[in-house]
């Protein structure tokens, strides 16, 4: 229950951190909040030869808005998302979700970048970022690129981040007018990873019909799972009970949850239907 020996560096500039990663590749790991990496090292599931502690890169700890788009630095602690006034006012899905992520003591350390880079299919932030159509900025010692959330999450604990890259920033677009969002999950205990969850984003047109919809499920596959047929079923519909029920049924059919010791796939499917129905109802109400 103790980490194996490693070499420790805590660079004070992003450039130095990226150089170390470029030089040492897969042997090196970034240490952000450490709330997933340190337990894995304590169990010796992870045995990096070199740790690049990025906690001194204070310049990557920020929340601001650029041309209507929310920008979050990778080192921003998850807890900050719950109380930031800008985020609360314009991206309420984030503060609504944060209390479901672990416990305050863990959120005080865990970072937005670490949570996304870790890419646990049961984690909340990857699902939220996907639902809100976010983008991620990846930087290496030789350049940078932006990747959309839909392409970033590849599979179980696997992302589009290349060996020499670091996730440095996340961008979330402003929501169109008459957009409502909601997040719901069912966990065995408050703060546990959920058995299943869903983030829903619904936009209505002037006539009240659904002009855009997204339903992204948590712990329903090897990455944030996009129920595209369910969303398509809502388009152009007045989102009353019948349309919502049809979409929820469609989601249940298109998902293939893997099941766990806590929940069978059949139970997860049941949760998908119930949570999709409730979250859609709430999102539509909020959009109105």
């Amino acid at each position: 229950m103790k980490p194996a020996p490693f070499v420790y560096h805590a660079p004070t500039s992003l450039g130095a951190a990226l150089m170390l990663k470029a030089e040492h590749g897969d042997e090196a790991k970034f240490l952000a909040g450490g709330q997933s990496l340190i337990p894995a090292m304590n169990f010796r599931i992870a045995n990096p030869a070199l740790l690049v502690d990025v906690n001194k890169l204070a310049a990557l700890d920020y929340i601001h808005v650029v041309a209507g788009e929310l920008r979050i630095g990778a080192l921003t602690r998850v807890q900050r998302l719950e109380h930031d006034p800008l985020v609360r006012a314009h991206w309420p899905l984030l503060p609504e979700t944060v209390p479901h992520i672990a416990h305050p003591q863990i959120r005080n350390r865990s970072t937005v970048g670490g949570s996304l880079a870790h890419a646990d299919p049961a984690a909340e932030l990857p699902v939220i970022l996907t639902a809100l159509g976010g983008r991620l900025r990846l930087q290496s010692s030789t350049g940078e690129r932006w990747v959309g959330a839909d392409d970033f999450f590849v599979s179980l604990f696997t992302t589009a981040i290349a060996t020499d890259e670091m996730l440095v920033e996340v961008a979330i677009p402003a929501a169109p007018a008459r957009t409502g969002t909601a997040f719901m999950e069912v966990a065995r205990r408050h703060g546990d990873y959920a058995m299943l969850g869903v983030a829903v984003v619904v936009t209505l047109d002037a006539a009240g019909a659904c002009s855009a919809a997204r339903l992204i499920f948590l712990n329903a596959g090897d990455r944030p799972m996009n129920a595209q047929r369910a969303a398509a079923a809502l388009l152009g519909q007045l989102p009353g009970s019948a349309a919502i029920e049809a979409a929820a049924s469609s989601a249940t059919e298109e998902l293939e949850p893997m099941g766990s010791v806590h929940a069978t796939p059949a139970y997860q499917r049941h949760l998908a239907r119930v949570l999709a129905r409730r979250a859609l109802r709430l999102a539509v109400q909020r959009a109105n």
Partner: protein
Amino acid sequence: MQRETMPETHLIQTTVNGQAYERHTEARQLLSDFLRHDLGLSGLHVGCEQGACGACTILFDGQPVRACLMLAVQADGHALLTVESLGTPDKLNVLQSAFWEKHGLQCGYCTAGILMTLTAFLQDNPTPTEHAVRTALSGNLCRCTGYQNIVAAALLAAEQMQPVDSTPQP
């Protein structure tokens, strides 16, 4: 890269419970072990070493964190508080007395972590509801008490901290 055969050590400067320390620590030493073994602050307990139980909760620059999920080297340049920073056996602080009064502990294994969680919580929420106290405690496991008396103790402490003494609890 060649894996080090000799333990890699770092010199760190940290302030714990108001006292400055300068120590060598092995890179892989957990902060919880550093506080217990190197500084002798054995009030801090270690339950799970995977972030699940909360027994090792300390205040890191004023915020509650898991000491078992941090490295000792990361304490360099920071200020930490452990349960030893609260009252003494002869003179318990308000929160500790409330635990005494309300029978908020049995075996006591979880208590140090819970006291540190509640110390930060009551500073930020001086007049909490019972629900808020329960939510604040969600990251601390107790196998003995069933939590009722811990919640009662937290509420009593909040009441007693009002408004007579508005200075933050140590």
